[in-house]
């Protein structure tokens, strides 16, 4: 599917990440050190780069700054064992598009890479339609088929986020960051309860489910006019 470069010095971690991403159909190359990673990053075109914050030889942030300085806009996700929020801000300032603190679930990483690869094309669109779902962001209303949905503002935002990414797996952490716009790890069941409510509203008239749980990772919205 996508051509990815992983720059990570810990071999065991790298093997797990490689195995997982390859299992999801990505072509992933691995560099174990900073200078080597920088060389490979510039030598070829990549769909996305996943790099560790601390690397031997050349640390991840300097590497990223070098790439960005050279005009390389390849989406980059920074991995770090440092969970400090300032660290995160530093990572994003250096040109990272996303930041994931270790330890993380492999599913979370895959979902975030997916999110980087498939950024919504036009976020200014205010009338969204996915299968039988339809929302009008200006009027603040949602419809399924011909039925009006009684959605709270937050539920509308949540649905919008999912509808902009049909078929894409979004994790709980991503939802919390992007829909609630706060940054910490809430108990996972809180997001699930919100999703459950939204789901019930979407399926109130006996329609087939459109939001599906992805075990151990998060959720995905599947258009109901396509076969799953």
């Amino acid at each position, binding site marked *: 599917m996508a051509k990815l470069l992983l720059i990570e010095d810990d071999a065991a971690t790298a093997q797990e990440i490689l195995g997982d991403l390859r299992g999801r159909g990505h072509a992933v190359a691995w560099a174990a050190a900073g200078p080597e990673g920088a060389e490979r990053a510039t030598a070829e075109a990549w769909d996305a780069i996943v790099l560790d914050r601390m690397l031997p030889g050349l640390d991840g942030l300097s590497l990223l700054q070098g790439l960005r300085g050279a005009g390389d806009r390849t989406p980059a996700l920074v991995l770090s064992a440092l*969970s400090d929020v300032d660290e995160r801000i530093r990572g994003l300032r250096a040109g990272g598009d996303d930041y994931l603190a270790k330890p993380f679930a492999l599913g979370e990483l895959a979902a975030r890479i997916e999110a980087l690869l498939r950024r919504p094309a036009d976020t200014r669109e205010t009338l969204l339609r996915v299968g039988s779902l339809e929302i009008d962001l200006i009027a603040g209303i949602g419809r399924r088929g011909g039925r009006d949905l009684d959605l709270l503002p937050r539920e509308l935002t949540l649905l919008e*986020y999912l509808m902009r990414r049909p078929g894409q797996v979004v994790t709980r952490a991503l939802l919390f960051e*992007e829909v609630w716009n*706060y940054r*910490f*790890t809430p108990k996972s069941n809180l997001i699930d*309860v919100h999703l459950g409510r939204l789901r019930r509203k979407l399926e109130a008239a006996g329609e087939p489910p459109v939001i599906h749980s992805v075990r*151990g990772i998060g959720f995905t919205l599947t258009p109901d006019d396509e076969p799953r």
Partner: protein
Amino acid sequence: MTDLLRSTTFRWALGIALWSVLLALAMFGFVYWQTVSFLREELAETLRLEVRAAAEDPAAASARVETWIAMDRHATHYGGVFGRDGRRLAGNLVGLPAGLARDGDAERVGATIEVSEGSLGDEIWATALALPDGGTVVIGHDTDEIDRVRATTLRAFGLGLVPALALSGLGGLLLASRARRRLAVTEAALAEVMRGDLRRRLPVGSRDDEFDRLARNVNRMLDEVERLMGEVRSVGDAVAHDLRTPLTRLRARLERSREQARSVAEFREAIDQGLAWIDQTLAMVTAVLRIGEIEHGLRRAGFAPVDLTRIVREAAEFFEPVAEDKGVALAVAVDEGAGRSPVEGDRDLLFEAVSNLIDNAVKFTPAGGSVRVGLEQGPAASVIVVEDSGPGIPPAERTRIFQRFYRAERARQTPGNGLGLGLGLVAAIARLHGFPVEAGKAPGGGARLTLVCPVPAPTDPARRRLAVAQAGASAPAGILQPRSGRDPL
């Protein structure tokens, strides 16, 4: 002795002694100079008046000069009337002093004086004026008197300087060695602390001087260090203990599955359960690290004006479905005008703190009960209040619940309730912000937890900055700026 010379206190004492000697010198110099010039001017004035009087009446000049000379028994008055040819007509000066201008002004000149045994040369103060007949009248006075005063003063000062120097030097030494003695005691105590005896304290005197204040501050610091060390120790124990439980379960589960699982589905189930337990332990480790991070105050840099109204409403909204599922009524009450003045803080952390307070309240409220989340506006602070209709917190536990890993009795009795990290995190966030957090009793007997957020003074730039921040971020981020949450700032 070299030790003493090297000590700062001694050098200070020496410096002060030298400075006081310098001051004394300067002061004496001034007094001396003033005295001498006063005496000189006084004498000069007398001479000027006398010579003018003598010159005014040329006929009586000689008599006046003789009177002037006779006025003094100690032979310190001199005078003379000289004719046009320089011949002496009267007085006790042998000749007209050489170089004396006839302008009536006093000057110091050499003169020859007639005494009973003959004549002698001496330095005198003299004035001269011309007489109408071409002669000169001279009035003079001995210089010895002023010279004597000068010499005496100088000698007195010289003699006084020696004891002054000795005294100030001695005082300096005394001060220095006293300070050194006090420091030596302090140093000894500190050395013991450095060797690891954290219970040792510095001696504090009764004078309440800067040494005492310093010692008291160091002692306070040591108290804090000791408290933290104790906390670290108990946290370490608690972490180890709380980690062991899920890890033991995990190990047992893996072992059992390895032996007994028959199908892929059974293995999957075991692995999923294992992952859940690992996530639980990781969440705990992350929380401990986060408390540490927050307590180190690393995040103050991220402070900005925060709209509490929004945080309180959004946190309550976030928990509403969970509360509803549990059969707990969650109500939000924001005072009219509350939160209009923004407070300085970290919005993510404050949201987390409010979330933890609500989470805690929902957790301990039985089905059918209620939780009230409020933002109350006081004169100088906005107060975030979370009340529940649960069993309440016994007074003895009200401060301890904010300690890390402290699990209230009621929590231990309720199975499946997380670790005592939630309120510990609230306390850490509150400490970072300098907001007092307190537990009390709600009107219905349940728990009432409050977070007091002082509002900065109205002139504070925070208010203006918030206005700008609100204008930029008023739209729900998900709609117009779906990725705005990712922006570095």
